[in-house]
């Protein structure tokens, strides 16, 4: 016996923290951490909903597993892009105006 409003409240809390993390960070990897928190809130909500008696098709845990897989794919590509950004600009600061030109820039290490 467990009251399901508890995990639901935790999910809401995690989502809020994730939103704050996304907005309060300028380091791109740390923004990703916020994104992961939001994803986990969604996962928790799915599991919670799936734990209700009479939930059909085992949808809760199955979709949670799917979301975890998608999260793995997402983080791989996202980190690849962040590493590209680091190599091109020498930083991963999201408050900087991005350069989207086609031409490669001189490596950031050499820049003053």
């Amino acid at each position, binding site marked *: 016996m467990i009251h399901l409003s508890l995990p639901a409240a935790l999910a809401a809390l995690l989502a809020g923290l994730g*939103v704050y993390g*996304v*907005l309060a*960070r*300028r380091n*791109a990897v740390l*923004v990703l951490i916020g994104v992961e928190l939001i994803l986990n809130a969604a996962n928790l909500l799915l599991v919670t909903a799936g734990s209700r008696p009479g939930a059909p098709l085992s949808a809760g845990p199955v979709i949670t597993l799917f979301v975890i897989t998608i999260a793995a794919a997402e983080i791989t590509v996202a980190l690849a892009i962040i590493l590209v950004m680091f190599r091109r600009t020498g930083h991963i600061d*999201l*408050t*900087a*105006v*991005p350069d*989207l*030109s086609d031409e490669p820039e001189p490596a950031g290490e050499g820049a003053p």
Partner: protein
Amino acid sequence: MSWIVRMIVVLPALAALIGLLARRRRAVAAGVAVSVSAYVAVLGLIQWVAPSRSADIDTIGGLPLGDLSVPLHLLSDRVSGLVSFVVALVVLGIQVFTVWYLRDDARYGQFAATVSLFATGMLLLVQSGDLVLMLVGWEIMGWCSWLLIGHDSERAAARRAAYKAFLVTRVADIGMVVGIVALSVRARSTDLMAVLTATGDGTLLTVGLVGVVIGVAGKSGLVPFHDWLPDAMEGPTPASALIHAATMVAAGTYVIARLFTLYAENDTARTLLAVLAAVTMVYAALLALAQTDLKRMLAYSTLSQIAIMLSALAAAPAELGPGAGISHLLGHAFFKALLFLGAGWLSVLAGGTAIVALRGRLRPTGALRWSMGIGLAALAGVPPLVGFFTKDTVIDAALEGATGGGGLRAWLVVVALFVTVVLTAAYCTRAWLLLDTPVAATGELPDTAPAVVAEEDVAVVTTADSADDAEVERVHAHGHATITLSAALVVSVLAALTVVGTLFLASLRGGVHVGLLSALLSLLLLAGGAYAVWFLSDRGRVDVAERIPGRVREPAVRGFGVDTAYVAVGRAVTTVARLVVALDRDVVDAYPRGTAVVARAAGRAGERGHRGVPSLSLLSLLVGVVLVAVLGVTAWR
């Protein structure tokens, strides 16, 4: 019999192949080339004299082309037999002569093989009873002429001449192909008999015949395609002899003769042919008079003579048939081969073909002097040499055409023919006087040759220069070689044939038909022309061409800048092509590229729009999301 005809076509091709494989071994190459051409000449003789006259011979079976019937048959009759015999004979002579003439050439093997292939082309054209086979032979000759003219490929002038010949004849070949296609479509068959007997669309017939005339004009060097032929003198002299005597340039005559029954009924094509031939024969004869190089003079004379053959076909009445043209073709084959080979011999002796270098060199040469004399006399049409008979056959045929309702066309031809007779006599006499008068004689009368003229003469010579530079180099490198017996024999035999060649033509229908009146008239004109030159040249002491003002003569030597006109045509075509390309690229393609530019510009603009600071963008995005969610929730509540 049918096998003989097939072998006549196939053997030279095999000889070409073997010769090409054995090109490094000179003896083998020469042996194959000479023996096969001798064998082919014998086969040609058999075909000519054999009792069975007409035969339709199967080759490789027809092509499966649906409605169009392409049987690829050979057609053997008395005309083709005679022509192939003469062709084979001339080729044999040239092969034998070449063995001596190119004695020091490292690429003799290739040359001999190419001559064999060239003979294949001509013999295939002669034997073919099918327009497609005819075209194949025609194109083989076109390609081989490129190889032969450009034989001395290390010389830029030879390369240019080869390309010029190839391109000019190719351009004209467009007409040939169009004509053949039109004729085939009209008859629904490419078989010669079917084409000749077909009845149908008159327009298609006109298009076909005019197309063929244009193709013939290219290969035979009628105005305006004539300028490649003098330039083709850059090839070795045997190649010139081959191209001029019995094969390539004469092939057109043969083709039109084969289609004569169609031409006889089509005024448009015949008029075109008549005008082209008339203009060419007079123009070329005039230019021949002005040349400073023996080979170039011979080349222009060839143009003139070919035009004479074609004029016979253009003006002769239908019932007379093409015999007159064929007969002049054969006669011309003998004496022109003789003249070219003689010129080659002489150039070896003198170390060049420029008339300045050759002046008086003929006198001490014995047999060669006789041969050249016979050749020039035949060219001028002195009886009883073959040239007299054939030319007067042509004049007679044209006169008959003119009096028999040929109209203006035939009269034009007749007048042109008589003018040409005078001019031919003039340049032949000039050539003989220049070659035969001892040089010392000119030295005795320095005051008759003004210094100005001499200077101009030198200038002309240096600009035109010797046509066969390779020969000059060869002589400089190896000295004056004595001619071999076999090569000398070839020249002598050709001279003999020039004397008695008329006998060959007896079997040809309408081959020899001399009208008394026309013969007398032409003899008078001939004598007049010759005397005028003899008189003007002060009995051979002065070049009569020097009497022509320099500012006329110099362009005349260069063919009045027709070459420049060709280049201009080429430039114009290139310019049009560039224009088309530019239109395609800058107008037609501009739209697709424009879309690309627009897309890229849009992308750039979008990129500008996306150049937000990420964290701020995230902030606004989430503000929006939360606002929407709040609104949604409140509305839902």
